[in-house]
């Protein structure tokens, strides 16, 4: 809808842009009758498109509303999923649980980035002496990317304490965070590796020919380009991690979803789940906008030298 609305407007803007470029002094230019007519026509089309889009949206919304509200099960569905009473009760508890999700996200997110980068570098190291390191890194990513997260969590959260090792924590949150880091660093390592491999070999060759050592070439030439390219997929994984932090509740920790679970179990009313779901969405949206902003900024920087 926005596209339809925007297109004619943008075209109009381009037109005026051309005109100012045509006459930088701004004197003496009088748009021709034909041009004025064309612009009038375009404005009319744009108005018409907006009106039709608005009407169609309104009709669709009204129809959807009627379909849902007139469904035979609507009163009970409304009571079960959209009860204001339970929403009010659940909201503070869900927020309390969300604090755990947020802390896990920050700590695990940082750990995942560091570990993922190290694994990616290990995997892309050249030279026969690094062969065992490459194999280990490849085995790590293969294993932890394939292992379902929930099973990884079960093993780490419930299995590790069973060993009764001295000095190893039994805290389900710390253990759960470890499991999350293990799985997500495998994903992120692959993202970084793809980034590193996407840097053209000529870049490395050029760096080496300028006298940089292999390590310097990696640090100053390859990695900056690789990381910048991979920011959107990285943030994608971060959003995904944010939602998966809730799985640590397997060890008994009360996160946002488990907090909702508790109220649902007692009342047999699903509204708390809806509340928890919306809270997660509300948390994800700023992150998605942030991703968009970062990407847009990168694009702007890349074309700074001027684009053709």
């Amino acid at each position, binding site marked *: *809808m926005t596209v339809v609305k925007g297109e004619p407007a943008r075209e109009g803007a381009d037109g005026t842009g051309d005109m100012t470029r045509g006459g930088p002094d701004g004197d003496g230019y009088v748009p021709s009758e034909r041009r004025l007519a064309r612009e009038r026509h375009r404005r009319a089309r744009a108005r018409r498109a907006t009106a*039709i889009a608005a009407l*169609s949206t309104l009709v669709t919304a009204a129809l959807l509303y009627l379909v849902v509200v007139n469904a035979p*099960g609507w009163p*009970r569905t409304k009571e079960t999923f959209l009860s204001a009473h339970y929403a009010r009760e659940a909201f503070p508890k869900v927020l309390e649980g969300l604090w755990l999700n947020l802390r896990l996200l920050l700590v695990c997110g940082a750990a995942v980035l560091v570990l993922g980068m190290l694994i990616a570098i290990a995997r892309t190291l050249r030279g026969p002496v690094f062969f065992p390191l490459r194999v280990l890194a490849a085995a790590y990513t293969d294993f932890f990317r394939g292992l379902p997260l929930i099973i990884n969590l079960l093993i780490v959260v*419930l299995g590790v*304490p069973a060993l009764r090792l001295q000095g190893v924590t039994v805290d389900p949150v710390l253990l759960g965070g470890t499991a999350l880091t293990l799985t997500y660093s495998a994903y992120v390592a692959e993202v970084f590796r793809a980034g590193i491999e996407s840097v053209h070999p000529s870049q490395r060759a050029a760096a080496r020919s300028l006298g940089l050592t292999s390590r310097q070439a990696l640090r100053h030439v390859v990695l900056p380009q690789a990381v910048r390219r991979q920011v959107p997929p990285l943030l994608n994984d971060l959003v995904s991690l944010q939602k998966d932090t809730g799985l640590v509740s397997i060890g008994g920790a009360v996160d946002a979803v488990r907090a909702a679970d508790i109220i649902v179990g*007692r*009342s*047999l009313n699903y509204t708390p789940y809806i509340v928890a779901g919306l809270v997660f969405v509300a948390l994800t949206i700023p992150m998605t906008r942030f991703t968009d902003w970062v990407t847009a900024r990168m694009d702007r920087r890349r074309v700074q030298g001027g684009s053709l």
Partner: protein
Amino acid sequence: MHPAPRTPRRAVAAVTVALLATAVGCAPQPEEEAAATSSGPAAKSCAKGKLATKETGKLTIATDEPAYEPWFKDDKPANGQGFESAVAYAVAKRLGYDKSAVVWQSVPFNKAFAPGVKSFDFDINQVSISDERKKAVDFSSGYYDVRQAVIALKGGTAAKARSIADLRKLKLGAQVGTTSLDYITDLVKPARQAAVFGKNDQAKSALKNRQVDAVVTDLPTAFYITAAEVTDAEIVGQFENQGGASEQFGLVLDKGSALTSCVTAAVDALREDGTLARIEKQWLSDAVDAPVLK
């Protein structure tokens, strides 16, 4: 470029989609005429073996999978062994359905009370009756008076607890959606946030791993866990019923189900003629000897 001609086509498409949704969404669902049937004379609708069940001539009973002991045996609800399996078959018999007419169905706890058309006639899954839950489902009358108990590893500090005040300092755990958890939050009010597990299995592991000091479950489950599953754990004690009223397990039926009154009548009859007491004696350990925590 002329984008305008595309717009009406999109509008048409949107309206078509909406209309299709209307057509599909409004197709009448096979809603039960629950209100009509249940308002009719109870005696007539409770005719033996001729209830308005999901499948005519069959009684569909639901429980979660896996089905835990001592409520079921060997995870096979259909074998008639274990307390709830025996109760289910006794209720079925009372309603006029013999063993071959009973169909078991595995329904997760969360799904058993979802609104919408139910796939079972009643659900038996250690569900405690409460006024709050009655807003979402129908319950039969209670078939078992349940008490909550605390289990802890032998020899630990938790095992020495003699009162609710002693429990307050401990890290407690319970399964989500259970009254056991309500006892922790409402009665014990521990200093540290209680661990809440998705399943009792995870609570048991956490107890073994010393991630929690003590776990609260219903008393028969506590007996089973300490006797068969975590043998180095013991029952610390049981709670008195909160607010004096006894907590009861009930059979879960769809809200407004036509069968509720019949099933309730069957459970009441089984209680009166001593069948429930006999089944309880056969399958559940004698619960008297657990000390009461005050």
